[in-house]
């Protein structure tokens, strides 16, 4: 079964994803603000943006930049996540997504970076939900 990536779902982070560049090589930007609720507990006195929420930024970026003919998309699998460096309050994430398709299966390879460093790579497997909103 797949996870529906509709725009209408529960979001664990307040950070909004802005699309800078749509297309097969898309770019989005996410500002990680210091008032993000998760920082209170991750960790007390030492805020680090959780790695899984970097994946959440990629899911949201995928929702927004998936080719229009396959929207809305559903998540089949997170093929891989590599967390390379920390993300801190105030960082601005740049997410570069490369979309590919092979038959019914869409794949999306994302590279995430801040001004300081490359912070993560994420590969997703998705499919079209088929339904038009």
């Amino acid at each position, binding site marked *: *079964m797949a996870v529906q990536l509709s725009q209408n779902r529960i*979001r664990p982070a307040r950070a909004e994803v802005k699309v800078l560049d749509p297309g097969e090589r898309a770019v989005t930007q996410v500002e990680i603000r210091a008032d993000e609720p998760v920082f*209170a*507990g991750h960790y007390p006195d*030492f805020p680090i943006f959780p*790695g*899984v929420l970097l994946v959440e930024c990629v899911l949201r970026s995928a929702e927004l930049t998936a080719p229009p003919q396959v929207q809305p998309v559903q998540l089949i*699998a997170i093929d*891989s996540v590599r967390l390379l460096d920390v993300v801190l309050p105030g960082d601005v994430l740049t997410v570069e997504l490369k979309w590919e398709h092979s038959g019914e299966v869409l794949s999306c390879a994302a590279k995430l970076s801040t001004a300081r460093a490359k912070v993560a790579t994420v590969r997703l497997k998705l499919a079209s939900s088929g339904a038009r909103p």
Partner: protein
Amino acid sequence: MIDAAGIRRLLPHRYPILLVDRVTQLVAGQRLTALKAVTGNEPWYAEVAPGTDLAYPPTLLIESWVQAAAVLVASSNTEQSGVMLLGSMSGVTFSDPVFPGDVVTHRVRVFRALSDTVIFEGDSTVYDRPAMTVQQAVLAFRPAAQIRPSTTEELT
């Protein structure tokens, strides 16, 4: 068994991102079974528009499972204080969605333990319904001094 107080001694995570409630089975260094109760009272359920899909975010299900893995390591590593940081994951698939009112059971197994890195695998279910499968997750141990400088200051 490790109760909520025991988990708080082992993990630095706190509200709203302490996502493991109880450990029900534990074989040191090998595997554990842990529970996470999902409630609509978590902060991401605030200010939700009518018609919103209320399924628990899959990335938080992953975080919850990863914290269970961290508890498995922390419970047998009492000499050093520090945190397990998630380094990588692969082959994460989702089955039935999880909703408020569900109690998620995480099963975490050590696949291989290296000097400061542990490779895990496992799955999450809601009663008998599959929710998530994790083919591989790699967690790396970082000593407290590198993570919480304010803590080391308090100790000196």
